[in-house]
């Protein structure tokens, strides 16, 4: 049983290595492209430096609490500078001249209004020239809003239950709606610390895995054309041996390709893709899914040229929507959801989690599971297609 499988696999490996395509597609091109992209676009994001204007027309507890929290935040130290400005107009002028990147404006009577359960609005001024400063200011105001909402709700509830107005503040703070305090917990942006060379390295590995495994299944159609597939099928071997033999080689070369791209990226750029065991497992699962999808293409294609064309289109579509060509966080929100329909999307997400969080195998158990499920579904459809077509 095993001998015909190994005979077919040995011939496939010999053919692939002899004509040089395996070396070029599996090793040279993905490594070269990953390296070029890494040098051209890689490296850490430039350090964030933002000056935010602070217009305190309230002079109350709330605004003081925000200033205190921002200044004492370890996370924002060295990144964020608060500049006091006397009025909203002055803040706008400074923003227009580029002196500040954004501004937060506390209106007069803000603390009092929140304390009375009437809520309040903090304004944020942003500039297109300093998007990062705008993001930070908005994030701070989002936190303020949630505190204000909680406080307003608590005060309204107390008043509704007949608590006298002069006792509401003390009652609310004693029962947990802790004053106009603001806390900024550590919550780094996911993927924020991942070097771009890791993105492009893993992207090229994921893309070329399709081409590498696809070439083996394409050769099934070439063999049908030249009659050697029928000759194999007329021999006393299991029906699945020709497909399994080629799948074995395609999968093996795919794993070698992704691992070579991973190792070369790590060595050239000195970056880590994360826990090696988890990275290897994720890459193997990706190659498995790519093998099943390209097998499905071969099972439905009529000629080897048609299989080539479809594999090319499928590979690039999966690569684009799956974040292999453009990092996922650069894609619009709905495209980030579309990415999860592709194996590349799950591989990319998993690798970003591994590189960013330093987690192990359990961190990527879901992506690996999804990739295996994709492989199972596509492989099942491919087997049905082969039974009707090539092996029918």
């Amino acid at each position, binding site marked *: 049983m095993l001998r015909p499988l190994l005979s077919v696999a040995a011939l496939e490996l010999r053919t692939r290595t002899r004509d040089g395509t395996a070396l070029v597609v599996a090793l040279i091109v993905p490594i070269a492209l990953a390296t070029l992209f890494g040098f051209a676009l890689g490296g850490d994001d430039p350090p964030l430096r933002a000056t935010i204007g602070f217009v305190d027309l309230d002079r109350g507890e709330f605004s003081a609490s925000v200033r205190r929290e921002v200044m004492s935040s370890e996370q924002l130290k060295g990144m964020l500078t608060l500049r006091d400005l006397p009025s909203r107009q002055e803040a706008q002028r400074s923003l227009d001249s580029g002196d500040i990147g954004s501004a937060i404006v506390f209106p007069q009577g803000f603390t009092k209004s929140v304390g009375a359960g009437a809520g309040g609005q903090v304004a944020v001024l942003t500039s297109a020239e300093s998007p990062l400063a705008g993001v930070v200011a908005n994030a701070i105001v989002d936190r303020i809003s949630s505190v204000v909402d909680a406080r307003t709700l608590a005060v309204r509830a107390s008043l509704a239950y007949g608590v006298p107005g002069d006792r509401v503040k003390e009652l609310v703070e004693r029962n947990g709606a802790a004053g106009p305090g603001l806390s900024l917990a550590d919550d780094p942006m996911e993927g924020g610390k991942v070097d771009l060379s890791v993105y492009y390295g893993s992207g090229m590995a994921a893309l070329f895995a399709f081409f590498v495994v696809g070439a083996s299944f394409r050769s099934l159609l070439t063999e049908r054309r030249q009659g050697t597939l029928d*000759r194999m099928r007329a021999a006393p071997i299991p029906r699945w041996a020709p497909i399994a033999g080629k799948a074995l080689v395609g999968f093996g070369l795919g794993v070698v390709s992704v691992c070579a791209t991973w190792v070369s990226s790590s060595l050239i750029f000195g970056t880590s893709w994360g826990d090696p065991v988890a990275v290897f497992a994720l890459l193997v699962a990706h190659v498995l899914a790519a093998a099943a999808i390209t097998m499905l293409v071969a099972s439905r294609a009529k000629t080897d040229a048609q299989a080539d064309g479809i594999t090319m289109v499928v590979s690039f579509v999966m690569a684009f929507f799956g974040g292999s060509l453009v990092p996922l966080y650069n894609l619009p929100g709905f495209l980030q959801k579309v990415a999860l329909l592709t194996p590349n999307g799950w591989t990319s997400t998993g690798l970003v989690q591994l590189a960013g969080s330093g987690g192990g195998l359990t961190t990527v158990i879901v992506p690996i599971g999804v990739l295996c499920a994709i492989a199972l579904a596509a492989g099942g459809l491919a087997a049905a297609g082969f039974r009707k077509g090539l092996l029918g």
Partner: protein
Amino acid sequence: MTATLACAGLSKRFGDVLAVQDVGFAIEPGEAYGLLGPNGAGKTTTISMLVGLLKPATGNVLVCGTDLAAEPMAAKAKIGYVPQEIALYPELTGRENLRFFGRLFGLPRRALAARIDEVLDLVGLSDRADGKLGAYSGGMKRRINIGAALLHRPEVLILDEPTVGVDPQSRKAILDGVERLVADGMALLYTSHYMEEVERVCDRVGIIDHGRIVAEGTRHELVAMVGSADTIELMLDGDVDGAFDKLQALEGVIEAVRTGTGSVRLLAEGGRYVLPAIIAAVDGRATVIAVEVIEPDLEATFLHLTGSKLRD
């Protein structure tokens, strides 16, 4: 005696087309059986069912008594199949091609190496075995194509058009080799467009047309089916309809068929001697511009049974 290859009731349908219908025959050890039929008659479909590439809708195939459907591995191990096309790897050498197919038939490594040398000697390519197949001539490729089916010493050899596109020297080498194998006791199923090859190699012939075996027997038996009548092909000019009526009524003419606007085919006893009467019969109505008398042979039988020439 158990037939080496026997099939019965084979049929296969592709959509609305019934490609093969109730085909059956048996080949004994040391017997060469020819399957003749025009293009699209069902030869390749029949062969595909005999070697396990297609599942028949009905019927069965027995190889040395082993049912191909029930025990495909055991049955296939006794068949040597030579497809119509050169089903080999052009980037490998002749020896490497033989080694690959020998391994698929489970030959042990050492025994395979020796057997490859024997087969290369048999097909006369020992001195070219280590050249790339892509650089071989058409005839040399055909010989390796046959050699790959002989490695495992099959009980029955199935040759589908083995001499298409080969030079006369290679054709002779192939036919000589095939005859030796049959003389040594191997059963042979042979299809070819070349009637003279079939007449030379085969002991019995089955004629297949529109998916059915329409006649079967030795060459002598098949030729006798059309009797001693000769076929006369006439090209006429003038009142062809009137001339055709006269020819139908002519003494000695068994059958007359219009094969075109100006052509008529006659089946007549002693065709050469009827010719003066034919010319006299059409005189005044049409002029005979060409005439061909075909004496009974396998080709004539084939023509009679299928209505078309083998190489149409």
